[in-house]
C-alpha cells in the first residue's frame, strides 16, 4: 500500500522521465526538428491556362530533350490533348505522339471536322499532378518512389524494381516504363531546374504562357495569387489525391 507522499513522488519521477527521455536519447539538429514538424517554405505547384494553349507541342519536345526521354518512342512525361466538341454532341479527342510535333492537321480521330460543326475545341496540357496524397507512392513495395518536402514526387532509379504498381495506381496515367533504365518514370517538375532558380523546361518552352510553375507557400507568387483568387479546377478531384496542378478553363469533357 503506498501513501500519498509515495504516490506523488512516483508520479513526479514518471513525469520527469517521460518528458526528458526523448531528448536524452537523441539530440536533434535544428534542421531535423524542422523536418520532424513538417516545416518547409516551398511547395511547388503548377498552373495551366487552357485558353492560352494552342497545341504547338513545344513543351513536349522540350521536356523529352531536357529529361532524356527517348524521343521516337511513344512515351512522354507530359503531353497535350485536343478536344473537339461537335454540335451533334460527339466529343473527339486525340494526342498524336503526345503532341510532340504539335497538331498540324484538322483531322481528329480519323474524322475530318468542318469548322461549322464545332461548338468548342481546345487543347489541354497534362503532366504529373504532384499530388499532396500521391497514390503511386503508397503502393511502392520497396520505397523507390517518394515525395520530397517541397511536394515533388520522384523515382529512385537505383532502387526501383520495375514492378509497375505505381503505373497502375496513378489515376492520371502519367507514369510509364523508361525503355532504357527499365524503371518507373515520371515528371520530376524539372526539380534540377527549380532548385537552380529556373523554370521547368516546358514552362520555358511555352510561347503563350499557358504553363506556369510557382511556390504555393508564397502568397506573393503570381501563380499562387491566380490559384487563390481565380476560378481554377483540378483533374479527377473525386479521387481524393489532392492534385497540385491547377487548370484555368477546364471543361467537363476533360478526363
Amino acid at each position, binding site marked *: 500500500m503506498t501513501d500519498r507522499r509515495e504516490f506523488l513522488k512516483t508520479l513526479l519521477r514518471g513525469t520527469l522521465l517521460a518528458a526528458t527521455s526523448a531528448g536524452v536519447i537523441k539530440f536533434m539538429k535544428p534542421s531535423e526538428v524542422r523536418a520532424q514538424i513538417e516545416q518547409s517554405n516551398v511547395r511547388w505547384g503548377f498552373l495551366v491556362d487552357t485558353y492560352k494553349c494552342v*497545341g504547338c507541342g513545344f513543351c513536349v519536345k522540350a521536356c523529352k530533350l531536357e529529361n532524356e526521354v527517348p524521343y521516337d518512342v511513344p512515351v512522354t512525361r507530359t503531353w497535350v490533348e485536343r478536344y473537339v466538341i461537335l454540335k451533334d454532341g460527339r466529343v473527339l479527342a486525340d494526342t498524336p505522339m503526345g503532341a510532340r510535333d504539335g497538331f498540324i492537321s*484538322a483531322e481528329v480521330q480519323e474524322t475530318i471536322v468542318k469548322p461549322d460543326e464545332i461548338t468548342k475545341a481546345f487543347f489541354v496540357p497534362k503532366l504529373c499532378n504532384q499530388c499532396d496524397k500521391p497514390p503511386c507512392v503508397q503502393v511502392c513495395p520497396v*520505397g523507390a518512389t517518394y515525395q520530397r518536402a517541397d511536394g515533388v514526387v520522384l523515382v529512385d532509379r537505383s532502387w526501383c524494381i520495375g514492378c509497375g504498381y505505381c503505373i497502375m495506381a496513378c489515376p492520371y496515367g502519367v507514369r510509364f516504363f523508361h525503355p532504357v533504365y527499365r524503371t518507373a518514370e515520371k515528371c520530376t517538375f524539372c526539380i534540377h531546374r527549380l532548385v537552380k532558380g529556373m523554370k521547368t523546361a516546358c514552362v520555358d518552352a511555352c510561347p503563350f504562357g499557358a504553363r506556369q510553375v510557382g511556390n504555393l507557400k508564397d502568397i506573393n507568387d503570381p501563380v499562387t495569387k491566380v490559384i487563390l483568387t481565380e476560378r481554377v479546377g483540378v483533374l479527377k478531384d473525386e479521387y481524393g489525391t489532392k492534385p497540385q496542378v491547377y487548370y484555368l478553363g477546364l471543361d467537363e469533357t476533360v478526363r
Partner: protein
Amino acid sequence: MRSHVWRPLFVALAVVGLILIARAFVVPPDFGVYERGFMYGYHRRSNEKEWEQFKVKYRGKQYCMDCHPDKYESNMSSKHKVIQCENCHGPAIDHPEDPPKLTVDRSRKLCLRCHTKLPYPSSLRGKLKGINPEEHNPDMECSTCHNPHKPDMEGWS
C-alpha cells in the same frame, strides 16, 4: 520439453537474425522516413541530390543573347518574341563548347505547329494566323519567303 521441439524455433530465429544482418549491409544508411512521413516519405535521401544534379539542357533566351545580341534584338522586336530560341535551334546544352554547332529545325512541320489553321472557338489557336498546309505552297520551306526571326516583314531584307 524435448530439444527437437525447440530446434525449429532456433532455426527460425537464426533466419530472422541473418535477414536483419544482411539488411544492415544492403540497405543504404540514408534510407529512412523523412518530412512526408512513412506513407509518402520513405526513401533514400541521397536520391534527391542525384535528381537535383541532373544536367540542364535548355538554357533560355538570355543565355543566347550574350553572344548573339543582333539575332536577339531582331527577334525581340517581332511577333515571334514569345518563342524561345531553343524551340527551333535545339537545346543549347553547353554550346559553344558542346555542341559547337546547334542544329536548326527549318522544317515546314515546325511552323505548322502553330500556323496550321485550326478554327477552334474558345482556344487561342483559332485566333492565330494560319494556312491550310495542303493548299499554301505545299512543296516549299516556309523560310523561303518568311523570315522566322521577323515574320511581320514580307520576305527577307
